[in-house]
């Protein structure tokens, strides 16, 4: 008899515990880490992230943006030109008719206003975030590669091989599982912390300072003023995709 009472008593205690528990937090959430980044940040629909590249400041022998991108995002190289992943690359531009000197410039995802990659994605993995970033939700990507074909800028790559965390690799960036598509994110994890993309930072630190990044919707930012005042161009404007990577001095 005593035993049974004890069991019932225990049952009652557990019942109270579970009634209190779901949804109700008796204890405060742990405090954020000591860094200056607020614990909670949110993308704003009023923002429109964009880049401006001053081609005259970009030299053919500099590739610090690419190196910085590879390091920040540990973008894998498999040693196979067909399978290597590129988030940003240097391209050479030759205008034979007008006999202008060859230009060297970085090309990366344009984060278009009307991205064809998003349009063709069958699972909704490719999407436009509130603040204009075109991103891939890798959790939904099935690796069909429609987007790779749809992108006129060749900005996307399929991950052919799984990777391990490189020594000293950035822990904020997940490693790769094969069978998903990836591309430049404008370093979304850095933007969300109020930082510039790694390529832009590297370009101003050890490159020619050719890259400028900011909010195009904010009239106070340097990029919005320069895009408004200077003659800037985008790649393949005729396609009507409204890219958000602008070039100056083409």
């Amino acid at each position, binding site marked *: 008899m005593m035993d049974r009472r004890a*069991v019932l008593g225990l049952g009652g205690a*557990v019942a109270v515990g*579970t009634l209190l528990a779901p949804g109700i937090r008796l204890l405060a959430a742990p405090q954020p880490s000591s860094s200056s980044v607020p614990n909670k940040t949110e993308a704003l629909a009023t923002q429109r992230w964009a880049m401006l590249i001053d081609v005259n400041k970009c030299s053919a022998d500099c590739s610090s943006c690419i190196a910085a991108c590879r390091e920040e995002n540990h973008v894998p190289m498999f040693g196979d030109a067909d399978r290597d992943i590129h988030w940003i690359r240097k391209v050479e531009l030759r205008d034979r008719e007008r006999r202008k000197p060859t230009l060297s410039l970085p090309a990366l995802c344009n984060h278009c206003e009307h991205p064809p990659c998003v349009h063709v994605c069958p699972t909704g993995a490719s999407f436009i*975030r509130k603040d204009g970033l075109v991103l891939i939700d890798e959790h939904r990507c099935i690796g069909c590669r429609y987007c790779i074909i749809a992108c006129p800028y060749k900005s996307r790559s399929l991950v052919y091989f799984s990777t391990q965390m490189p020594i000293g690799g950035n*822990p904020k960036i997940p*490693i790769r599982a094969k069978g998903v598509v990836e591309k430049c994110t404008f370093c*979304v994890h850095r933007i969300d912390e109020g930082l510039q993309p790694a390529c832009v930072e590297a370009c101003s630190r050890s490159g020619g300072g050719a890259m400028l990044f900011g909010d195009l919707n904010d009239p106070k930012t340097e990029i919005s003023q320069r895009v408004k005042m200077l003659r800037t161009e985008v790649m393949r404007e005729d396609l009507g995709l409204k890219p958000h990577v602008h070039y100056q001095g083409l």
Partner: protein
Amino acid sequence: MMRLREVALYRIILMAVVGVLCLMDNMPVWAMGAAVPQLQPAQDKPCVRDPAWMRRNHPEFLRQKRDLTVREGVRVRNESLARCATCHQDRAQFCDRCHQYAGVDPNCFTCHNYVHTP
């Protein structure tokens, strides 16, 4: 008379047993006395939600966080997937051990790093 009382008693016992069984659903695994895996105790307190709630609902919690973070751009840093490792240090002795016991195999860690950073 005797029989009626006996029946009533048995009924109460039955209800009690059913009640306890129902409650066991929400009990910590160790309280059920089954041969459950020993999980590594957390290094710090408290969990991002009530532990009993987390035991049942962490898959849903993580999925919701995932969509909120990736698609809506809302980052809550002390509740991110990476942060679980600050308290649940060793994945093999916490997440994996329980998942093996439960027979589930989430593929999250083919991509996500689970590194303990104190």
